[in-house]
């Protein structure tokens, strides 16, 4: 089984977090089959120690909290991430490795370790990266938490898991400069048929919840969860998608709770105009009229420097109809 440990709750540092939202986020993570979660003492306190069942919890401790022993010991927390040491079976030592070019030595006696950073892991090539691990520590005993300094964190997590590394720690949309949980899940869903009969409609609610609980606004073209990633304008693409969506879509939008939308603009073709007419208007138009409408759409779009809204399109249709 793919071991993804989601650490979104640890990346939500603001004051917008309440118990109900944390409980809902945990529920949604379970619904998308992510049952390993990293939490902090603060999240534990917000939950008043009431951790939902059927989840493996990893408590992340910074040095001062660990030394002061200022955290709860709870049977429902299976593991504690602690700085470079281990005093009992529940503790997993954490190492920060920012660059694989630097020499690191880790005692091979540990049973499991967590490695944070690895920012440049893929820059020198995948094989080179795993040669580094073969010298460092066996990957089947490493949990990695890659950082996204070079826009490669998700790729690092995926590559590591494909090479049978123990697990990867990520956050929703990669908030906090991490790998993105939903991107890892979908990459395995698509390329390895992981959870083949599953849909991930909860991404939409998760996205709204994460935005509510943080100051982050997830942009419209974000991979997997962007609101507009299934908007399609270009004539070539619309025609291809209408013949068969898989011609230009990696997966159907419904799987991630999204929907396809034809938008009209400068790159639009006749097929898209005809399809949009079907969607918005009951009147029948001749080929010649559709050609006229297309030319107006392109002209208006170029003049305003943006796409055409449905209302604007209806106005164009009414003008042509008259």
């Amino acid at each position, binding site marked *: 089984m793919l071991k993804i440990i989601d650490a979104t709750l640890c990346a939500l540092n603001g004051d917008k977090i309440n118990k109900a939202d944390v409980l809902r986020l945990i529920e949604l993570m379970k619904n998308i089959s992510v049952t390993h979660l990293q939490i902090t003492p603060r999240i534990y306190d917000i939950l008043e120690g009431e951790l939902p069942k059927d989840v493996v919890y990893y408590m992340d401790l910074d040095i001062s909290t660990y030394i002061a022993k200022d955290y709860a010991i709870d049977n429902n927390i299976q593991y504690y991430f602690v700085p470079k040491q281990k005093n009992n079976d529940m503790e997993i030592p954490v190492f920060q490795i920012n660059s694989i070019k630097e020499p690191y030595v880790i005692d091979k006696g540990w049973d499991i370790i967590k490695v944070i950073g690895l920012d440049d892991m893929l820059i020198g090539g995948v094989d080179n990266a795993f040669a580094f691990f073969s010298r460092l520590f066996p990957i089947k005993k490493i949990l990695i938490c890659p950082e996204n300094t070079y*826009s490669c964190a998700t790729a690092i997590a995926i590559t590591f898991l494909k090479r049978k590394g123990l697990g990867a720690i990520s956050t929703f949309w990669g908030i906090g400069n991490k790998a993105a949980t939903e991107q890892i899940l979908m990459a395995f869903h698509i390329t390895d048929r992981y959870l083949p009969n599953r849909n991930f409609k909860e991404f939409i609610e998760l996205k709204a919840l994460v935005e509510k609980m943080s100051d982050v606004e997830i942009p419209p073209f974000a991979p997997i969860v962007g609101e507009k990633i299934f908007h399609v304008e270009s004539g070539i693409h619309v025609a291809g998608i209408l013949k068969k969506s*898989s011609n230009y879509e990696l997966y159907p939008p419904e799987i991630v709770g999204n929907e396809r939308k034809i938008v009209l603009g400068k790159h639009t073709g006749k097929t898209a105009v005809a399809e949009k007419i079907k969607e918005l208007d009951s009147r029948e138009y001749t080929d010649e009229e559709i050609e006229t409408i297309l030319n107006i759409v392109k002209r208006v779009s170029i003049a305003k420097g943006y796409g055409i809204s449905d209302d604007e399109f209806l106005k164009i249709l009414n003008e042509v109809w008259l």
Partner: protein
Amino acid sequence: MENNAPGVVFVPEDKVKIALALDEIGVYEIEVGIYSRATEGRDYILEIMEKKKNSNISLWARLRKDDVLEACRQKPDILHIGVPVSYAQIYSKLNKNKQWILKNLAECMEIADNFHVPVVLGFEDCSRADLGFMIKLIACAEKLGVSKIRLSDTVGIFTPERAGKFVKDVKSYSNIPIETHEHNDLGLAVANSIEMANAGAEYIDCTLYGLGERAGNCDMYEFVNAAELKYDTGIDKKNISKVYKLLENILKPKYSDYLR
């Protein structure tokens, strides 16, 4: 500049501004669009060709004689011809067959050859295509004088290891230079491009802000930021930021909609 990000419209004046800014910062090649007599005409292409100092200016065309002829008449430095190579693209989208591809390729190349325009062949949807057919196409393309092959991961399905292996496989059959074209559907466009460069790809397609269909393409700033740890791209990332600043005033309704 013509990478089909839905809702994004670059009018000819914008294209001239952006192209000259990219030329200034040392981008090797700038694809300025698809020639269209009906919408933009040719004036902006001529203006860019006349004023640019360093970059190669390219146009994109479908594998159709008329399109290639019109594009060649604009005398770009490079012409990209998009060639569908997967079953999905050839049979399901175009309702054609492999023979049709080979025949049209020969006809289009003859036109480009007559105009002395170097051609890059863009293998569309290569990540879902049969390697055997692509190897056959490459052999044919080399005979016809194609200068480069662009590997388009059209639906963004590559992961780094598959992307790198694919480039190595192609390189094991041919020495023709390879260009990559990654989509960011799984958030892997930068890492895939890096791994493809590591595997021997000589040219990397990027777009500003990663603008492109669906979740976009390989973001130029992000790519240079990562690649400069190992490669000299010839582009200072601070200068890319200046071009992004220019775009803030062009992208509507607001540029932040296009951040990822």
